[in-house]
């Protein structure tokens, strides 16, 4: 079935089963591979994308529920928050294996877009859905704080 999907500012027709999780449409059809598969049941956050600015687990989001929305993947997160987050991530050497980090960056960017100066509790709450098996959490926290500081200045 043909559906119309707006991803990273471009609207495209995709011919898929409407129940297909958004994750597999993004990856298999659109070949945007920054968004990852870790669990398939909304437990790990590796598949996080923004749907109308909201961090969303694409692995459990049927594609036909997001037609008409604006979907943003790691490939196109942009703006001052995204830049600050990615700069802090690189400067603090956050990634280890890196597999979770697209999802972490999308969640962190969405957090700072909503709350430019989050408390430690707000950071923990916003990032609670993103598992890092390499446990880079200490640096994720530091990088979000650093990004938040640079945004202020």
């Amino acid at each position, binding site marked *: 079935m043909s559906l119309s999907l707006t991803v990273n500012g471009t609207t495209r027709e995709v011919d898929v089963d409407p129940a297909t999780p958004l994750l597999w449409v993004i990856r298999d059809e659109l070949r945007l*591979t920054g968004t990852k*598969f870790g*669990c*398939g049941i909304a437990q790990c956050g590796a598949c996080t994308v923004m749907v109308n600015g909201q961090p969303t687990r694409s692995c459990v989001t049927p594609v036909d529920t997001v037609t008409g929305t604006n979907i943003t993947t790691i490939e196109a997160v942009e703006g001052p928050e995204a830049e600050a987050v990615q700069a802090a991530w690189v400067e603090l050497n956050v990634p280890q294996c*890196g597999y979770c980090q697209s999802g972490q960056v999308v969640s962190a960017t969405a957090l700072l877009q909503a709350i430019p100066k989050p408390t430690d509790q707000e950071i923990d709450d916003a*990032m609670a859905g993103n598992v*890092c*098996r*390499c446990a880079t959490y200490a*640096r994720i926290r530091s990088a979000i704080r650093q990004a938040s500081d640079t945004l202020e200045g």
Partner: protein
Amino acid sequence: MTLIKPTRRAFLASTAGLVIAVALPQARRAAAQAQGEQNFAPDAFIRIAPDNTVTVLIKHLEMGQGANTGLASVVAEELDADWAQMRAESAPANTALYTNFAFGIQGVGGSTGMANSYMQMRKAGAAARAMLVEAAARDWGVDASAITVEAGTLTGPDGQTGTFGDFAEAALDSEVPADPALKDPSEFKLIGQKLTRLDSPGKTDGTSEFTIDIYLDGMETVAVLHPPKFGATVASVNDAAALEVPGVTRVAQIPTGVAVYGTNTYAAFQGRDALEVEWDESGAETRSSAEMAQVWAEAARGEAREVEASGDIKAAFADAATTHEAEFVFPFLAHAPLEPLDGVIQLGDGEAEVWMGSQLQTVDHGTLAGVLQIDQANVALNTMYAGGSFGRRATPASHFAAELANVASAAGPGAYKLLWTRENDIRGGYYRPLTVHHLRGALDADGKITGWQNTIANQSIIAGSPFEQMMQDGLDPTSYEGSTNMPYDWPAHRVSWARMESGVPVLWWRAVGHTHTAYSTETFLDELLEMGGQDQVQGRLDLISAEAGRDRAVLERVADMAGWSGPGTGDRRMGVALHESFGSYVAMIAEVEDRDGHPFTTKVWCAVDCGFAVNPDVVISQMEGGIGFGLGTTLYNEITIEQGGRVRQSNFDQYRMIRIYDMPQIEVAIVNSQNDPSGVGEPGVPPIAPAMANAWRSLTGATPRRLPLQDAGV
């Protein structure tokens, strides 16, 4: 993992000369090869391109441990390169060129990556530098000794300057120095400094390519259904419903189960769910893990094979004023790397190309060729970034490579991506072995420890595997490593091992035997010290033998960092642990509080001596990650095998991962003993569990004897 070291010398001796490649435009390289310019084995370790980039080919899998950054920084140091011009690339599978000297094959594990490459990469960098200098000397008509190199720029005596790229081609005509001069460590500019990881930008903007990200023309995605019990096999398959799923192209029975091929991932997954399979369970392991734990415990209480002993252990217990005894049960554990196991294969006629996060390339390469029945020379194996491993991608049985090859063979020429789901992973076996320890301690009237006895029961990881030759006189050191060679001097001690058998495949899991031995030894010792009225830090220092200076130094350092003055008396208590693994010495103090009956670790201090710290920031990040990994496991993780043989857990909803809110604050100090670099990927894991448990005992009066804590009713 611990692998035999005796072969190391043999391999070093047999490693002929150094091979360096200086990149050339393809045509010229081919011409150079055709002309038999033997000195340049293209693509061995270093490629310097005319665009002035320096690419280091990394022979070890990058799975997060920082191999790319680490090895590239060592090359850059001796080359006097600018860090910004450095790149890293995974080396192809080629045992002759990329052997890990610790194993004699291409592969990485046991935190050996830096240790075995440090000198090799330094020499490669120094040789390349000498060749560039020689090329510049020829071009400028000056003496090579008059040329200096700094941050990627060559400078001649009359102010001539050039980049590496300028001389990349001319350097081809330089002699490869057999024994290039190396820097004195005091001259290091990059080694020992914090550097930006080479893989950070791509892993932050989503452009880094993992195996799962490969899409080939016409590629089918393949999902597999494995038997529900270890040792079961397919009896019959009804694939009618699966074949009706739109996008499913075929179903094939393979030795490990049933494979479903689809034009996209969702189709393959849906097709797999629609399979109806009857299993032959006649050869299956049907015992529950609880039942096995009982059998293991009985063995640990009985006589077992002695692996290390000193003094008169019988007398120590006969003469003891007090004795103490404890039994510990450690569960099966899944590695659960965040990228599930996956591989891509392009099968042609008599040739194949494979992409996967292979940690033991030599073994996987041979397996692929064997199963495909294609000459190994015609099978190319490309190593991709791995989304974590923790030992999971280093399977001596090479079962994943074999399954990938079988998936391709069953379907014939074409491109296939085999993608495990999380359920395949959690239920797929190759676990950290279920282990039971039985410890006994003897104290004299003064509270001094006079006898120490530890009996360990578990399955052998290496017995029956292609690494079987690592067994030492029937003993598998990976089963009990860390319970032997302890830094403490006891008047008498005895460590024994009982080898258990089950149908559950087991594997090394980040820090291997140390994952359980550090816990039992460091919590039991803590209890004995308390019984003897001794302080847990000073008591350890008093026991540490004269030879164990590195253990002493990290323990003293961590006590200092935490301001240790005993476990404390308030709501937050401290616990300490000390453990050496893979040649690195780590001491930790954890500060823990009781949150609604559960331990919450607020802060961890960590002192590590990993010899000379090549990349200090990588060392710190590996300690941080090791602490989080160890803590989450201790709190939440176990694989439970139900009565009948099914695995209870299947995904992260039941196999719970540590999350950001569980993470303590961490402070790491590197104690530089100036010894040769040793590994850091694993040694951060073992001490955190006992440090946390010791603090928890101070709060509650009891050491959790059965992990995880959540299972122990904590």
